[in-house]
């Protein structure tokens, strides 16, 4: 029986539970100095002077570095963005967000760095700051005068004037997908050591060791042959550690300058303003259709807040566009976006990266439309689903969905939630005028995984003792890939999972790699290993045939014991160690997977909330989730991914938001002020199994890393709106904090004036 599909416990766990992981800060690096960055305290200002003379004299200070010392070209944005919007390594003339690094201090130990940082005096000439992306669009305050605009990039609308022709009902609304902080529990960290022979080893808390290596080559000008990047244990990333930042890329440069190993580990307060933020879209939605529930047209216009220096965040609307139709077959769809710079921390990828925003827009739009025509949200959804026999399905913008069955997902979730009973209970509470009202929210989503990334590299080698060594380009940081990748190799080669060694996150050990991003690790990295193992199997068959003096076609592989024998004579079998010894060049294969395309997981979520009508407080009581990610290798790991995603989705819907005051000062700069979701604010989740394999790869696997977040956020938001629907409420902004909800209730209950 195949091991695939079983709840295999994680091989990673014993270490994490007993001695703890080895994160960058845990690395014992002999003689390492400590790097501390001095950061801007102003959102937008000209730098009139930076006085480091006192800091230089402070105890333990080895070096003090300003932007003038850094002989590297500023970090250029994507080619399609004005190149004048480049990010300086350390600000020299202008600072554009609170938290922007200005000075790097190198000290003997960590406390000395903080002491010396306090002795740096920066003379700022404040400039007006622009925080609101819609205001930034107007260009009254321009961040990069040389660019002459705050617009980083955009996707224009086709501009069809007759989009809503024939619609009996059209609903329009502006909604905001607010900024949130990814908050991996380990912040950013890096360490660098140059050896005497001129080779660099850099440890980086990164989702891609190879990506970091390439950045060092391209941006710091290092020779790839001299660079080794290792991603040791990484305490979460959620997209924010895919790309690098000036602070971590500068660490090897600093180590070379001071001639000693250095280490940099940011504090949480630094991380809250330094690590990129996620989301940040203002969305204008327009939806139209017939009174009997058919949606005929939909337009989504997005203003993306890219933050001060346009990074991957400026490109998120491209992902939003790809998923604009959601799970619906809508005859006419239009999308437009503009990404603008503002005086905020740069926007980056965060769990879902552009797709949660698309889903939030369409799933809110469907509810608004349903409310307008007085039809149930489940019925309107059903009326407009892409039917299950329409796959592969090409959407309005040309995205090709591989497989799906949205009706079934909705049926399953409604049944599990006991939707009818919930509606009855809601009705009763409304009739009684209860203080605590019930809200039921739906979301049916489809998302894209393994989008916009190339293939993945994987290699399999049989060791002399018959154990298997796998090298993979994925770079896990919590996903449990040591376990799932070894399951794939073990199943293919008939060995025990514990006899597979998985090597990753080290550019010296792994030839190529994309990393763990975009929910792609199993469908790309796993498939590459699966194929490499298949090639090893073929090689082994020939070697076994030689040893047994038989025709390769007569060889039988026994997957239970991992042995080859001639058909009919199982007693004379050759083991992996026999074959490894006999194969002249060893048994080894590497696969550089190309193509294959993305896959489209989907699902349906039901959220049940209670709302205190007197205080506006919301409790999430239930979250029922069907998430179909194709074939599942290890349901335990897949559920774990869903759980984490659900919590982050709930967090955005109800609690979390990066906030600023009117001068652009962030006010959520630590975990006391940022509403990081806790165990006390969540129920246990109800997850329901559904598997629709993809034809795109031989494992039938889609990605599961981000689905939970994508489905949960609108489900919970829709539930809050639903709890207040009897007051005529059609929308409640995220996060639905007591204050926000209370205000909506008061406004809805106030007698109409005028």
């Amino acid at each position, binding site marked *: 029986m195949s091991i695939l599909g079983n709840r295999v416990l994680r091989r*990673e766990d014993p270490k994490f539970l007993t001695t703890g992981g080895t994160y960058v800060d845990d690395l014992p690096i002999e003689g390492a100095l400590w790097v501390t960055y001095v950061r801007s305290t102003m959102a937008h200002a000209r730098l009139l002077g930076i006085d480091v003379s006192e800091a230089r004299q402070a105890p333990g200070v080895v070096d003090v570095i300003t932007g003038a010392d850094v002989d590297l070209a500023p970090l250029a944005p994507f080619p399609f963005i004005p190149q004048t919007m480049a990010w300086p390594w350390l600000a020299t003339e202008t600072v554009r967000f609170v938290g922007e690094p200005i000075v790097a201090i190198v000290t003997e130990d960590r*406390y000395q760095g903080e002491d010396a940082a306090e002795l740096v005096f920066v003379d700022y000439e404040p400039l007006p700051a622009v925080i609101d992306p819609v205001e930034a669009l107007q260009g009254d305050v321009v961040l990069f005068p040389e660019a002459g605009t705050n617009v980083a990039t955009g996707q224009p609308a086709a501009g069809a004037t007759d989009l809503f022709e024939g619609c009996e009902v059209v609903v329009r609304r502006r909604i905001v997908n607010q900024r949130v902080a990814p908050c991996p529990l*380990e912040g950013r960290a890096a360490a660098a050591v140059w050896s005497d022979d001129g080779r660099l080893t850099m440890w980086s808390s990164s989702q891609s060791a190879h990506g970091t290596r390439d950045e060092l080559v391209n941006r710091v000008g290092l020779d790839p042959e001299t660079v080794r990047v290792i991603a040791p244990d990484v305490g979460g990333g959620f997209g924010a550690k895919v790309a690098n930042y000036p602070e971590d890329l500068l660490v090897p440069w600093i180590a070379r300058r001071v001639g000693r190993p250095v280490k940099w580990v940011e504090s949480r307060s630094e991380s809250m303003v330094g690590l990129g933020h996620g989301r940040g879209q203002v969305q204008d939605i327009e939806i139209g259709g017939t009174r009997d529930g058919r949606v005929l047209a939909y337009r989504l216009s997005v203003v993306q807040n890219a933050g001060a220096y346009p990074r991957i965040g400026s490109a998120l609307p491209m992902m939003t566009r790809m998923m604009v139709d959601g799970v619906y077959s809508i005859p006419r769809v239009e999308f437009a976006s503009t990404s603008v710079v503002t005086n905020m921390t740069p926007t980056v990828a965060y769990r879902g990266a552009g797709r949660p925003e698309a889903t939030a827009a369409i799933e809110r739009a469907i509810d608004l439309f349903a409310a307008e025509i007085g039809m149930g949200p489940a019925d309107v959804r059903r009326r407009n689903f892409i039917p299950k026999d329409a796959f592969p399905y090409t959407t309005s913008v040309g995205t090709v969905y591989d497989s799906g069955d949205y009706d079934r997902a909705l049926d399953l979730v409604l049944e599990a939630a006991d939707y009818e009973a919930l509606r009855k209970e809601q009705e009763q509470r409304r009739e009684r005028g209860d203080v605590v009202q019930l809200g039921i929210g739906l979301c049916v989503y489809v998302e894209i995984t393994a989008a916009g990334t190339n293939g993945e590299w994987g290699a399999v080698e049989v060791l002399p003792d018959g154990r298997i060594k796998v090298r993979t380009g994925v770079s896990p940081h*919590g996903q449990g890939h040591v376990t799932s990748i070894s399951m794939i190799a073990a199943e293919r080669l008939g060995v025990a999972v514990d006899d597979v060694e998985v090597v990753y996150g080290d550019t010296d050990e792994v030839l190529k790699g994309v990393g763990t991003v975009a929910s792609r690790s199993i469908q790309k990295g796993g498939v590459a290993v699966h194929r490499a193992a298949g090639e090893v199997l073929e090689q082994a068959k020939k070697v076994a045939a030689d040893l047994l003096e038989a025709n390769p076609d007569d060889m039988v592989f026994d997957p239970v014991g991992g042995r080859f024998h001639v058909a009919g004579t199982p007693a004379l079998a050759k083991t992996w160690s026999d074959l490894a010894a006999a194969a002249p060049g060893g048994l080894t294969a590497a696969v550089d997977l190309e193509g294959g395309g993305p896959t489209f997981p989907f699902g349906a979520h039901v959220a049940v909330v209670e709302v205190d009508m007197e205080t506006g407080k919301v409790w999430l009581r239930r979250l029922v989730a069907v998430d179909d990610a194709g074939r599942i290798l290890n349901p335990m790991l897949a559920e774990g991914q869903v759980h984490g995603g659900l919590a982050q989705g709930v967090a955005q819907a109800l609690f979390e938001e990066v906030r600023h005051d009117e001068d652009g000062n962030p006010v959520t700069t630590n975990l*006391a002020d940022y509403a990081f979701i806790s165990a006390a604010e969540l129920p246990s989740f109800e997850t329901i199994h559904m598997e629709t394999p993809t034809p795109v790869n031989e494992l039938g696997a889609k990605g599961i890393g981000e689905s939970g977040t994508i489905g949960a956020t609108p489900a919970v938001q829709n539930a809050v709106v639903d709890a207040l629907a009897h007051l005529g409420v059609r929308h409640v902004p995220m996060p639905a904090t007591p204050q926000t909800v209370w205000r909506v209730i008061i406004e809805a209950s106030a007698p109409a004036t005028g």
Partner: protein
Amino acid sequence: MHVSPTVNGTTQAHDVEPRLLLVHYLRDVVGLTATNVGCDTSSCGACTVLLDGESVKSCTVLAVQADGAEIVTVEALARDDELHPVQQAFRENHGLQCGYCTPGMVMAALSLLREHPDPTEEEVREGLEGNLCRCTGYHNIVKAVLAAAGMPGATGVRA
């Protein structure tokens, strides 16, 4: 200043700066790096250890305040190859992903079970409110703690 706490059963003796945090003492001076730092506002609980039998956030205690105290970190829980029941429950219920919150979470769970040997789900959730995890959505952590509650030796520490 001189400090001499007992850490995981071993008496230590060091001269430290008065401002040194206990968590940095454990990590940088004693060399026990399982205990992590996740914030600078005593919010996350990644640094949770037992101090004289009570769970504390070791980033809120100065090393000098722990002079003469008994400190237990997650490193002390397992014996040879045998995981402590709480560790075992975390493993069996997939209560960890990236592992960063885990050492603190396990110590907080242990302390919670000492106060509530047979907790309800709500008591577990309330009890772990000060220990943040970004990966698991807490679902399997709660499940693990409830599972550990039934195991013999779940509240014991052999250090």
